[in-house]
């Protein structure tokens, strides 16, 4: 199966898990954003373009099940993955804690994008002090989930002999 199809199927699985499993797995009333964590994983290894594209698609899929405007999560996830992809060039030797830390940091950035842009487009209820608590808790959950989801994402996104070459510049860990 070519890589794009694998990633598409992976996205569908993430959406199903996010909407059916994760609501049962709430901790402190927050859930992790699986699409965001996967997008960050792709951005770290394959660069900002791949991360942004997957993040946008994952966010758009998540938006379909939320009350907030379509495109809000897509923007937050895509922009965050893009920034992570740009910033990952500075990482030379990744320690074991880098993946969860990156995912948690991305969770905070994406949460701020979501709340900030959401407030700008009329979702004023998001602009509350309580949102900070939600963002931090969800980011911590993202970091924990990253320990499992990063390897899975890399296994799905690996470039096989049948895949078309030129998927973007590899980052650390792909050598």
């Amino acid at each position: 199966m070519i890589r794009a199809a694998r990633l598409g199927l992976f996205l569908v699985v993430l959406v199903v898990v996010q909407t059916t499993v994760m609501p049962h797995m709430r901790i402190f009333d927050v859930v992790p954003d699986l699409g965001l964590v996967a997008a960050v994983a792709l951005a770290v290894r394959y660069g900002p373009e791949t991360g942004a594209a997957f993040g946008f698609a994952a966010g758009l899929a998540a938006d379909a099940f939320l009350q907030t405007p379509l495109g809000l999560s897509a923007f937050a996830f895509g922009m965050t993955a893009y920034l992570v992809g740009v910033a990952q060039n500075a990482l030379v030797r990744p320690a074991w804690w880098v993946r969860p830390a990156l995912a948690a940091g991305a969770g905070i950035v994406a949460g701020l994008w979501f709340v900030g842009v959401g407030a700008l487009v009329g979702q004023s209820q998001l602009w509350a002090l309580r949102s900070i608590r939600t963002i931090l808790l969800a980011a911590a959950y993202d970091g924990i989930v990253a320990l499992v989801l990063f390897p899975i994402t890399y296994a799905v996104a690996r470039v096989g002999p049948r895949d078309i070459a030129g998927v973007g510049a590899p980052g650390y860990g792909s050598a």
Partner: protein
Amino acid sequence: MASPRGNRRRTVLILLILTSITVITLDSRGGDSGVGGQIRNTARDVFAPVQDGVDQILQPVGDWWDGVTKAGAIKAENRKLRRQLQAARGEVATAKSAVRDIRDLRTLSKLPFATDLKGVNAEIILGSPGNFEATVGLNKGSDAGIASNQPVVSGAGLIGRVGRVSGQRATVVLLTDRDSGVVVRNTRTNQRGVINGHGDTTVLTLDNIDGDGTMKAGDLLVTAGTDGGPFPPGIPVARVTSVRKRPGDLLARVTVVLLANASNTEFVRVLVWPVP
């Protein structure tokens, strides 16, 4: 001179921003009938059968997780519920008798209004997949007659209102959601106030209280049913748990607890309101 890779990245960034703004604008302006709404509804209906299957398979896992994370609270709640059950059984017997009496009396006096609204029974099958809203998903949608903004109740009282609806799914925006608010009336003093959602808790405050009188702990709050309002009058919403007024305060701080809690509710009724 900029490198081709740098140009490509800038192009991706600009595309990302422009596409996001376009989608958000289209969805905000078009609502559920716009392109964004149609995409959303299609996606929800396409995933509906998969969600049903996975949810049924994973229900035991979810129950186990709840048991692990809430064991202490569940034991305490169990003891409390047993005590309440004994009291409730007596109340139910009394209430059944009262309902029969009320129906008989209504028939006899032929009142010009009816409190029994038509509705659609539905099952709560999904929790909220996001972090910034308090919602639940129902197993029925517009195909069953459910429409946006209709009130949703459980046996205990008002749960919330219908948010987005697709053919086979409806999302209920709970009273605890930060975007929720309901005007209520104290059944004892007739004072009105507003209960606004604050997130995950069912313990809320009563704001904008008007009228004379003094609220007391234990007072029952029902929907006020304002003209053209989103909720019919008389639906139980909450009970006052405490009233505190410090010296110098203009208004008392009234804390209430919602009567209906979606987390321990399985079936709800979506009311047809306003009556067509």
